Every structure is written in C-alpha cells, then in structure tokens.
C-alpha cells in the first residue's frame, strides 16, 4: 500500500468520524423527537460508510456483511420509530 492510499484512507476515516460527531451532537441536542430519529438515521449511515472504508483499509471482505447488516437493521429501526411517532403504535 503506497502512502497515497494510506493517507487517503486515514483522511476518509477522519472525515467520517467528524460526520458521526455532528450526527451525535444532533442526536443529543435535538429539540424534538423527529430530530433525534433523523440524527440516528444519519449516524448509522455514517457508521456503515466507515465500515466500507475499514474494509478497504484492512483488505478484508468480512466488513461488507457487517455493513449490510448495519444497513438492514438501521432501516428497520428508523422506520419503526418514525411509524411510532406518526401513529403512536408500530403494528396496528
């Protein structure tokens, strides 16, 4: 691995960490419930992207299954919380 790719991957990880911190700030400080749900949605997408970068960094394809699962369960969680905010119950 040349220094170009090494430092590019480090920079990408740093940027994604900053993105996750921004989402975490909105998750903790969001004035309403829908703000927090949106921040959680953004947080898991950023975490999934970070997992893709880690997969390149360690040259291992195990991370993609983990990223797939994160995307799957994150979608289920965000959608059910949003449905709960809309109707007051998840399954009617």
């Amino acid at each position: 691995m040349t220094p170009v790719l090494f430092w590019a991957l480090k920079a990408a990880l740093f940027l994604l960490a900053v993105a996750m911190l921004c989402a975490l700030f909105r998750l903790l400080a969001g004035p309403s419930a829908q703000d927090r749900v949106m921040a959680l949605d953004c947080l898991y997408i950023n975490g999934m992207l970070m997992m893709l970068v880690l997969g390149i960094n360690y040259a291992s394809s195990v991370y993609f299954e983990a990223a797939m699962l994160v995307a799957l369960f994150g979608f289920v969680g965000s959608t059910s919380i949003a449905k709960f905010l809309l109707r007051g119950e998840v399954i009617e």
Partner: protein
Amino acid sequence: MSATALPLWAEIITAVFAVLGAAFAAIGSFGLVRMPTFFRRIHAPTLGATVGAWCLTVATIAYFSVQGFSLFLHAVLIVLFIVLTAPITTIFLMRAALFRERQKGNTKVPPSSESR
C-alpha cells in the same frame, strides 16, 4: 495487510473516491448541525446516503476488483439497499414531523397540496 501491491492507477482511483465519499458524508452531517429548523435539516443527510455511499462503493469495487483479479460486486448490494430504503425512512419521518407540528398548532409548517 495483504502483501500484493496494487497498480498505482487503482490506488489513485480508490483514494480519490474514498476521500470524496467521506467528504460528502461529512458535509451532509455538518448540515445537520448547521440548519435552523427540522424541515431544512432533513435535506442535509441525504447527501451522505446518496453521493457518499455511491463514491465509497466505487472505491471498494475498484480496490477489490484489482486486488482479487475478478469483479467484486458485493458492495453494490449495500448501496442498492440504501437507495431503496433511505427515501422510505425520510417520507415516514416527514409525515410524522408534519403531523406532530400541526398537532402542536405550529403554523410555520410547509403547507399541504390539498389545503389550497
């Protein structure tokens, strides 16, 4: 770390798209902090879910295809799933936010198309 050295062009493609995707995700998340109201804020994180995810997928495909000498398409599954599901979550959240703001009597919500 695998010892197989990649050709320089593959490493440059991977590096450029990885940094680009991460930068788009960071810009989108920073908009989440910076925008003043919920109805403006909901636009920002879609940048990371679309352009960010696609750029990182291109980087992943470039790296593992060159490294493994065969086309690596697992990562496309992830980004296709994100493309299908991110709008659903956003629509549900938007409806919930409109409903809750109207319940609270807030008149500053965006108007619905039927009411005029």
